[in-house]
């Protein structure tokens, strides 16, 4: 049978391509922000902060396209899930870009502070992990790979572990008086930014799962809540025996 609604499907393909483009911009931000931080490159920091406007503009364009398709085409089933996923992904990616802007701003705040090799190494490793996670989440999206999407939560454990080591390294550097309190706090926040990018990648993976299977990520928590509530109802009903039961 011939394919129908060809223009509509072109719109969907275009949204998908632009999400990939947005993802590439964000992914490229991660090593770039890290270089700015490690080199204390004030010009680079400013350039990165300005480049974030491109991410914002593309995010806005994708969002508007999604709303237009929703309003004009009333997508259903997998098409509906693709559009809803696209709206979610723009949010996750845009925020990840903002976190690298925060890294660039932190570079300005700690300008001149000495970073020991251990800290530098851990920052590089966090940066690599964060960028790997964003890449994998985009792969899952492009390939419609629900199992890779689901695996991201486990893959993110590596970044969480490096983040833990990094916080310890900040304490060590601060206690040996190599690192002042103000830069120590800034660096702790920087670690948090990378760690959050990993969380956004995990979210993207879950949204990809929804797009492919219709499974919503919060179902596990919601099921736990329902089970707890059901247990409470059972307890109440056993405390108040029905008439004629004995």
């Amino acid at each position, binding site marked *: 049978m011939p394919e*129908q*609604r060809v223009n509509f499907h072109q719109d969907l393909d275009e949204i998908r391509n632009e999400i990939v483009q947005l993802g590439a911009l964000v992914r490229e931000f991660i090593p770039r922000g890290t270089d700015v931080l490690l080199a204390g490159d004030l010009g680079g920091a400013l350039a990165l902060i300005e480049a974030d406007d491109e991410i914002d503009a593309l995010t806005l364009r994708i969002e508007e396209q999604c709303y237009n398709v929703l309003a004009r085409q*009333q997508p*259903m*089933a997998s*098409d509906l899930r693709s559009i809803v996923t696209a709206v979610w992904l723009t949010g996750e990616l845009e925020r990840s870009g903002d976190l690298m802007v925060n890294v660039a701003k932190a570079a300005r705040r700690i300008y001149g502070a000495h970073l020991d090799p251990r800290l530098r190494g851990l920052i590089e490793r966090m940066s690599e992990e964060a960028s790997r996670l964003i890449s994998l989440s985009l792969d899952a999206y492009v390939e419609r790979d629900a199992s890779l999407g689901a695996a991201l939560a486990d893959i993110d454990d590596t970044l969480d572990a490096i983040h833990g080591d990094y916080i310890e390294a900040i304490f060590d550097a601060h206690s040996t008086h190599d690192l002042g309190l103000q830069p120590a706090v800034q660096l702790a926040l920087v670690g948090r930014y990378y760690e959050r990018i990993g969380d956004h990648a995990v979210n993207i993976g879950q949204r990809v799962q929804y797009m492919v299977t219709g499974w919503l990520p919060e179902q596990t928590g919601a099921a736990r809540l329902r089970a707890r509530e059901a247990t409470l109802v059972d307890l109440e009903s056993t405390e108040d025996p029905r*008439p*004629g039961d004995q």
Partner: protein
Amino acid sequence: MTESTSTDLPQEVEEPMATVAASASSVGGGPAMTPAASSDPASIGAEVVFDVRDLDVYYGAFRAVRDVNLQIHKKEITAFIGPSGCGKSTVLRCFDRMNDLIEGARVEGKVLYHGVDLYDDRVDPVEVRKRIGMVFQKPNPFPKSIYDNIAFGPRLAGNKENLDDLVERALRQAALWDEVKDRLKKSAMGLSGGQQQRLCIARAIAVEPEVILMDEPCSALDPIATARIEDLMQELKAEFTILIVTHNMQQAARVSDRTAFFTTEINSHSDTRTGCLVEYAPTNKIFSAPEDERTENYVTGRFG
């Protein structure tokens, strides 16, 4: 059941059984049966009005619909969707035995209404249609006054008292009263299409049926009149069980609680088409994450 000394609970259990037994025996004096046991987990908690089992409909030797199995739940709106010729209207007409009126039409399998097979020889189709009303695609008021359109069914049933109250109540339930209360004696043919369709709904509910069947009730109406009928359906749901056949997928998505998707299969040896039920699920599921690829292709409009 032996007499029990305990108070509320046994009565609560007893009552629905008694109701079913009463309705079973009163449908044309048909056989009294035990209520249909439900094996569908999705139906738990909702009373089953119709239980369709292995339904085949033939027009002469041609099998128009095959192997339909589904349950219709009380005070829900169930939508039938699918391409032309998929058998959705044919199946709908089985619920009030309207297929009886078509030459050569024959039904196999069972359509159980509260456990009673509607196609049992002892069931009177006229009695069936008192309990199960129908609204058609094209508004079809009688060429009589608005009042007489509504009073027609009750009069036929021998109800001569309080007709004024009955007419007012039916028109109010159909959200038409305020528009027609000053012209009840005027011809129904002078109403707009949307008003005529609401009049037909009022006429259907005036005989106090349990179920209302709607066969594309909005396809002849503009979007505003359509929206009024859809709002009305939500109000009527509090009292009636509604089945709607619609070509408008968005309408099914907007109004229904459950959706049944039918499609056509081409019979390779005879080059004929037979309708079959592909998927029956809560409407949210059908339109957000259907199980069957054929449903997916239909609701996304991907393939004809």
